[in-house]
């Protein structure tokens, strides 16, 4: 199956056209973000950034078919997302969400093994090939010493890695992660993001995540999507910097983007008012 996708004429792994995302409540439509368009190739790490409430998570959940789009189209390897069956989608796209997992009584190994569900038989027996993939997923994130621990014994950073390992074990070309670095300290944020970049580059996966760590994303991502409610620019971080797209991302009364360092600076005047 997968062979037909890799050499298909459309090599775009994930593509969105004129996408609007949000919520429907009865007849009321709450549009969170609109006019979103991007094309992702295989083997890249991409970040979705924006201010609070810009629709990062809503967009990610729409891409992962957790919720339906309001309008526009999403294509996965050239196929419209809406036309793919749940079971087929499960072998093409995996998720790491912010939802807390229902039970933390699972062992790391058990949790990662669940990632093989799309491939196992009716009762979920693991074939030798499944066991190999599970072990290699655990190795990729470096969790071998912890694999028999229960999830309630893990720190937030370790649990995040377990969830990433589960997504890797699911063996999909696309992995979507919703805020994988929240609640983590600076070191572990970098650790998770470099891990994701390695996986994307070495295993040829398309990895998309939402984040508030704009500066870190600029350094580590291949492409970024800025949800700024003004065209939602998409491109390489350096290109976005050159186009001055970060300058207008936040209201400019407190912080300012410094193109030379690729970081945000707090205004001098803001310092003064604090004093």
């Amino acid at each position, binding site marked *: 199956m997968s062979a037909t996708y890799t050499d298909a004429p459309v090599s775009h792994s994930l593509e969105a056209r004129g996408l609007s995302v949000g919520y429907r409540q009865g007849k009321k439509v709450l549009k969170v973000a609109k006019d979103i368009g991007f094309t992702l190739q295989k083997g890249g790490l991409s970040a979705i950034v924006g201010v609070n409430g810009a629709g990062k998570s809503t967009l990610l959940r729409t891409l992962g078919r*957790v919720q339906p789009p309001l309008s526009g189209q999403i294509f996965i390897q050239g196929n419209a997302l809406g036309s793919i069956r749940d079971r087929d989608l*499960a072998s093409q796209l995996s998720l790491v969400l912010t939802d807390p*997992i229902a039970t933390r009584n*699972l062992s790391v190994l*058990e949790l990662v093994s669940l990632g093989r569900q799309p491939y196992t038989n009716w009762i*979920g027996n693991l074939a030798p090939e499944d066991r190999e993939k599970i072990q290699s997923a655990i190795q990729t994130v470096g969790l071998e010493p912890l694999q028999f621990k229960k999830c309630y014994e893990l720190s937030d950073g370790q649990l995040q890695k377990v969830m990433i390992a589960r997504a890797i074990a699911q063996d999909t070309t696309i992995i979507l992660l919703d805020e994988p670095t929240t609640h983590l300290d600076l070191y572990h944020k970098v650790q998770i993001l470099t891990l994701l970049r390695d996986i994307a580059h070495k295993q040829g996966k398309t990895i998309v995540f939402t984040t508030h760590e704009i500066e870190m994303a600029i350094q580590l991502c291949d492409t970024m999507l800025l949800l700024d409610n003004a065209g939602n620019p998409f491109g390489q971080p350096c290109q976005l910097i050159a186009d001055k797209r970060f300058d207008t991302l936040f209201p400019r009364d407190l912080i300012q983007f410094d193109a030379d360092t690729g970081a945000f600076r707090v205004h001098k005047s803001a310092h003064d008012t604090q004093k």
Partner: protein
Amino acid sequence: MQRNKTYRLPFLLLSLALIFCLALNASLGSVSIPLKDTLSALLGGPLEQESWRYIIWNYRLPKALTALMVGSGLSLSGLLMQTLFRNPLAGPFVLGISSGASLGAALLIMGASLLSGWFGTLLLTDVSVTIASSVGSLLVLLAVIAVAGRIKDTMALLIIGLMFGSITTAVVSVLSYFSEAEQLRQYIFWSYGSLGHLSWPQLALLGSVLTAGVLLSVLAIKPLNGLLLGEHYAKSMGISLKKSRFLIILATGLLAGSVTAFAGPVAFVGLAVPHLTRQIFDTTDHRVLLPAVLLYGAILLLLCDTLAQLPASAYVLPINAITSIIGAPVVIWLLLRKRKMIF
């Protein structure tokens, strides 16, 4: 792989314990029959008194088998509910499913008297009581699920389950107010829970409904494991939520409904046994837990029933009281050890 556990030893020990409890249960009762003769009667050997054979085959063995099936059925439905609702306190009793069965039974037993004459008595067969309680429990379960779809907070869901129970109790009170002493008595005895009145054909019926429930649960093992991560993850791993939810609800309705119909409400077994099982089987995999709760539930209820029949006396205590006396402290104990309360 070091940890590809099959849990052979615990399963073997539990099976032996089950056989022992079955024999113990069958050998104790108002008439004293030695264990040796009990086994001999079961295996078709010679006996000191031939009447013992009748007692064992027509009274004690059906009762022991009822206890076995009731224990297994309730425990499995508890396990299904805990995973479906992702709540360690879920069980057929807490979520008002047993109350639904009670309502069905009450409507039939007491409502049938309103339909005077032969038509009313015709309605009141064991099969119809079973159907009525199954329908009752299924309806409450569907109502709980409908509410569950709107409410994400599981604690709120439990309270709603309790409210369904209260409504049921109220309706039953109204019914009892208008019904005749005879029917009221019949219903109250039904609500005590009883394992000792089933005939072989009734046992066969209970057995087949339970088997259907167990088979449906076996089909739901993979979705159940997926649901351990929550519904979004389960769906993203290719599980059809609609189908598996329906499967699990149907299985629970069959298991809890038929048990409550035949044996009356039996409290706490469904809630406590899955937790007790997890103390022995250190896993969340339903491929292991499902057979384990079946065994454990059967053993526990056989023991409770052995206690309830007060060995060497003619008294039989209501089984529902015994399971509550044992079950409620277990739940309190589990809550005190909060860490283990995660399911």
